[in-house]
Each structure stands twice: as structure tokens, then as C-alpha cells.
């Protein structure tokens, strides 16, 4: 039955002398993949406050206020399914590959949307903007 009694000893000794499998987190960060579903970002210049993301969000994390001209998301309620990104008619929502930072209190991330209801002809290329609440290094990378 005990064909190789020292098999675990070998594994354990290798464990002892090899580099740790983990990274010392705050100092070193694991590289993120392009496809990683991190958090939702919005290019507010393109948003037309159409409410589709608000309606379609499976958890109701996105709240769009048309009169107040704001787009808001509860990051802790968001399940990163990316459904809003799929349904957005203007493609102004994107899935970033960075996770949202830890927070100590629940709050909505509110973004002001510069959109005037009677839409004029599409403006020249909208300046690619980053979400107002979180300074994201690389926005909308998918």
C-alpha cells in the first residue's frame, strides 16, 4: 500500500524552498487581463440618458436621473455582468479591466452627463472622458 512513503515529503520540501506562489499584494499587483471584467465605466459625453441601462441592469445597480442629468452606479450592487455594455445604444458604457477600489461605505458613483434633451446633430469627436468619481488609468479597454 505504501509504495512511495516519501512522496509528500518531496512535495513539502519543494514547497519549503521555492518562491512564494503569492505576490506581496499592495506592493506588487497581479497583471490584469484584457478580458477581465473589472468595473463599468462611462463616457459621459456620449450618453443620451436613454435609461436602457437602468431598465436592463439585473440588480438595479444603475440609476439614471433624466431631469437631474446624472448617471449613477452602485459599485457594490453591480455584478459585472456587462449587460449594460451590450445594450447601450451609444456604446458609451464600457467594461474596464481594473476592479473598483475598496470602500468603507456604500455610495453611488454619480456622473454628470452633459446632454441636452433635443439632440442637435452629433458633435465632432467627443473627448474621451474618464469617469468622474474614479480616476481610471485606462478607460474603456475591452
Amino acid at each position, binding site marked *: *500500500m*505504501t*509504495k*512511495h*512513503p516519501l*512522496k*509528500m515529503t*518531496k*512535495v*513539502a520540501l519543494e*514547497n519549503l524552498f521555492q518562491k512564494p*506562489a503569492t505576490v506581496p499584494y499592495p506592493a506588487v499587483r497581479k497583471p490584469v*487581463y484584457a*478580458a*477581465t*471584467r473589472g468595473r463599468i465605466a462611462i463616457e459621459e459625453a456620449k450618453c443620451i440618458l436613454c435609461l436602457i441601462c437602468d431598465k*436592463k441592469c*439585473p440588480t438595479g445597480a444603475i440609476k439614471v436621473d433624466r431631469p437631474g442629468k446624472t448617471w449613477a452606479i452602485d459599485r457594490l450592487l453591480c*455584478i*459585472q*455582468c*456587462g*449587460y449594460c455594455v*451590450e445594450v447601450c445604444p451609444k456604446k458609451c458604457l464600457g*467594461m474596464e479591466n481594473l476592479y473598483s477600489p475598496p470602500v468603507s461605505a456604500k455610495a453611488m458613483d454619480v456622473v454628470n452627463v452633459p446632454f441636452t434633451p433635443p439632440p442637435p446633430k452629433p458633435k465632432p469627436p467627443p473627448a474621451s472622458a474618464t469617469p468622474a468619481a474614479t480616476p481610471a488609468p485606462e478607460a474603456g479597454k475591452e
Partner: protein
Amino acid sequence: MANRTVIPFGPQHPVLPEPIHLDLVIEDEHVVEAIPSFGFIHRGLEKLAEKRDFTEFTFVAERICGICSYIHGMGYCQAIESVMGLEIPERAKWLRTMWAELSRMHSHMMWLGLLGDAFGFENLFMAFWRVREGLLDIIEETSGGRVIFGAAKVGGIRRDVPDDLLARIPAQLAKIEAEMRPITDVFRDDFSVRQRLCGVGVLSQKDAYDLGAVGPVLRGSGVAVDTRLEGYAAYDRVQVEPIVESDGDCWARAMVRIREVYQSFEILKQVLPNVPAGPVDMKVTGAPNGEFFARLEQPRGEVIYYVKGSGKKQLDRFRVRTPTFANIPPLLKMLQGCQLADVPVIVLTIDPCISCAER
């Protein structure tokens, strides 16, 4: 006759990731009978299907369980597609197969680690989880999530995987397989592992079949039933043999899972080079009208999805019968006559996932 005592086991116990309660009737050190109680985490997800659009319910279906999340989503979509008579694109079928196997591997590796932990072999636990991390990286790179893949969609898959990435995976898998060999050898040969697992919680072939056991519990008792043989997704074009062990004890169930991980490596070797080019999803119009029972093989065993629609956006009825639910009656049988100290190990060998059992 010795005195009988009732010892409560759970709902909170170190080996139990989720709450289930067992009343163990003990005579000396032996369990005479176990009576389970449920309902600590019943979430009413089946009822929720009556309120949600059937396409949006995919997100809920994927979150029925954390570990076998992908196959839950895939099974739900497969049931809906069968009702609506959709034939999804070939590429989507092959990628679904790939993800299903990746999810089986990471579930089994997690379980093997947890089993090591259950009998006090922390080093083995750490070793398995370290190797599993490599698989999670592949999963994250292809689907975007580490555990919740979020890739299932009625009519295909939600994101395509670039071909250069698919070409890179075999090398990563080969590395993981090489890292895995020494630690699974420990499982197979180590004296203390065999002392804790061999002959413990024996379930005979007849009992396993009659009590409706599924998955590795059934195959560990010598019954060759594997739903993958039915050939859903692309399983009809890959070689799948049911992995069977005959002893029916905890060790046999562990061996089935170890061999299934290696089998998944083999399946992926057949799948990855053969993923055809083409679209990954199709347009879904209308609403399901009819009913269908879909059967799939999850890491934990056979899972049943039932959907019934009447042409509305919401389903009339959605039901999942998860493998853990089917494995509860066999578990009670296994516990009869075992030592009290073996109860945590035996409970763990059915790979209990209570939140999916209660939905």
C-alpha cells in the same frame, strides 16, 4: 444496548462551506442514523424566473452556484434553446465545451484541496489550491471572470475567445498538468491519506443506483453513468469515457475526481485545436413556448433543468435539480454505521453545495 445520543452537526462546521444541519444519532462512537435539515439558505430563485425576462434570467441562473456557475448558465440556455428550437453556431458549442471542462477541473481541484483540509492535511490543501490558480488564470483570460464566467447567453456565448489565446492555452494546461502529477500521486499513494479514506463511507453499487446518486458518488460506486455521453454541446465529437471506480468508499470518490481532472485535460486537447471559426451567437426572437428537461453533467453530477414557457417573456416554471440534492439520500445511507470522526470527511465526499441544492 448502548445509550443513544443525538449530536447536532452543522449548520456551522469547519468542513461545511454552506449551512446544512444533520442530527446524528450516535451509539458509542458509531452513527446509527442521520437526519438532515434544510432551508437555511433557500433563496426562491425558481420563483424569481416568473418575474424576469427569460434572457435576463441567465445572469441569475449563472449565480445559482458559485463553483459550477458556468454549467448552470449553460444548462439554462440549453434548455431554453431546446424549447425554442435554436441550433446554436458551432463555435459557440465548442467554446461552451471548453469552458464546461475548465469549470469541471477547477471545481474538482478545489474539492480535492478541501478534502485534504477535511482530514487535516493542510499542506495538500495548499498545494491543490496553488495549482488551481493557474486554471483560474486561464478562465479569467478567456471569459473575464475568475469563477463567475458570465459567458452564457441564450443563442450562443457572450464573448468570443481570440484564436491566438486558444492556441496559447494548451501550453498553460500542460504546465498545470505537470504541476498536478506529484500532488495527485500523494493522494493515491500516501499512507495517511489511504488510512483516512479507504473503506470509509462505503456505498454499494445497488444502493448508489437505487437511491438516485449522481456524478462522482455514483461512478465511485461502480455505475458508469455520465451525462456527457448524451452529446450535448460538442461532446458528441470528443472522446468521453465514464470514469468508474468500484470500491464505493471515500477514496474511490476522490480517485474518480482525480481521474476526471486528467480526463478533462485530454478532452481539452481534443477541443482546443478543433474550435471552428464562425459566429458565436445568433439572434433570438420570440419567447419560449413549450417545455423541456435538459440534462448536463456538472462537476458534482447530473443536473436537470426544466423550463416551461407559454410564449411570454417570463417563464411559467423554471426548475433545477442540482446534484447535491440528489446526493443527500445516498449521503444518509453512507453515514449509517460510520465513526463520528469520519462524518466530516464523508459529508465532504459528496461535494456538498447547499445553496445550489436549495436554490
